[in-house]
């Protein structure tokens, strides 16, 4: 079994690679180049040895949204008519744009899954801190992941509260009203909880600032080499004309 080479890279390197590759992929504007980007992303994903169950769930969620785009774009972009249904016409240009978007989004997402998929959120947070990302943003990310579960339990309790009072949803004013209350309570409850969490943090010596992260170790030379190589490749991929990879 080949060890996972991506796991050997520093968290900072992985985040920088994602950034670099994502910007490059988004700049691609031909179907073949975007297709190659998807292939590269699939290759990276294979290298990262993802957990099949979590991965397929993420991919399915993403494709659902993208397919919607692919289906609707041809009908709203003007151009050479491909199919005509009554007053609506699907254009070749629209299909091309949709396809390009589909490939680029897939390439970026698969790259993210490959490079960050096996990191847990505290690792991502630590790497971001070492990259000098503002601590407030990182804490927001960490708290968000911490409280997703709490919030979903709170939502569940709210639903139970409606149910024990004999509520069953239907198409009527009471349902809209109850749904509004439910959402409102969720917001109120979150606000209260945030205040309590802040109080608890204050009791443990929180003064509004977060301690600065540990001194940052420098990037290993392997990481530097990988970053440099990818940066050069990305540059060529972005250049159009005789010097670029896409003539």
């Amino acid at each position, binding site marked *: 079994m080949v060890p996972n080479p991506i796991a050997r890279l520093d968290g900072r390197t992985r985040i920088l690679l994602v950034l670099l590759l994502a910007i490059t992929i988004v700049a691609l504007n031909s179907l073949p180049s975007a297709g190659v980007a998807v292939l590269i992303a699939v290759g990276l994903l294979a290298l990262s040895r993802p957990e099949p169950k979590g991965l397929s769930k993420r991919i399915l969620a993403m494709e659902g949204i993208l397919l919607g785009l692919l289906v609707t774009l041809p009908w709203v972009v003007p151009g050479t008519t491909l199919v005509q249904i009554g007053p609506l016409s699907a254009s070749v240009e629209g299909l091309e744009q949709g396809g390009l978007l589909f490939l680029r989004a897939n390439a970026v997402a698969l790259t993210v899954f490959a490079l960050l998929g096996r990191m847990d959120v505290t690792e991502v947070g630590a790497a971001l801190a070492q990259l000098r990302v503002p601590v407030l943003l990182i804490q927001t990310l960490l708290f968000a992941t911490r409280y997703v579960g709490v919030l979903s339990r709170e939502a569940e*309790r*709210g639903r*139970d*509260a*409606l*149910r*024990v*009072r*004999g*509520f*069953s949803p239907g198409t009527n004013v*009471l349902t809209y009203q*109850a749904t509004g*209350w*439910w959402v*409102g*309570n969720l917001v*109120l*409850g979150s606000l*209260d909880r945030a205040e309590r969490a802040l109080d608890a943090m204050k009791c443990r010596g929180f003064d509004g600032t977060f301690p600065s992260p540990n001194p940052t170790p420098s990037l290993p030379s392997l990481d530097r080499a990988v970053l440099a190589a990818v940066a050069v490749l990305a540059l060529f991929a972005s250049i159009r004309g005789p010097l670029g990879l896409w003539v």
Partner: protein
Amino acid sequence: MTSQEVAPASDARLLEMRDVHAGYAEAPVLRGASLTLHAGERLALFGSNGAGKSTLLRVLVGLVRPIQGSVWAFGRERTKEADFVSVRQKAGLVFQDADDQLVAPTVLEDVAFGPRNHGLSEDEAKAQAQRTLSELGLEGFESRLTHRLSGGEKRLVALAGVLAMKPEALLLDEPFTGLDVKAEARVKEILAGLRLALLVVTHDVNVLDELTLEGRTLEDGVIL
């Protein structure tokens, strides 16, 4: 109204669970629990923390589905969500944390919520809510905001919200926890005066005398 006037337990079975296993599949908290609540019967359910008392109440009204065993309510077996909608109108569950129970922004809207789910018009529901609030001595609370009430007030309003549905049975999850002496006495006074079947989950053994309850104990997932 005093507890002496409470109707004697008749043979009518309101709620019943038979050999129920429930909780997480790998570690069910209920492991063969059976319990019957007859019309007018008043039970107290004791058990240590984590014994599954709350789960038992939630199973009876279908918020938790048993892994194994059956739940019967008001004359027939209940298995699906749709079966339990009518059960919850006749068997009112009061949560341990009133904050989990209050759904509407104001007290009157909250207490009227159950009756509106019964199909009453908004005006009828509000009138019924008003009557319930008066019975519990909560006149003047109608337009108060539910999330700004004190802990004791929240408990009383949550109770009012369930009683406004005119249930035949009342299931209460630790109704005295976290209340001051006065609020606790008030809740006990209200419960003592109700002519309903009661199932009270509590740690307070005094309620046996104060509310004329019959004790049951949940231990190791079964009712002793």
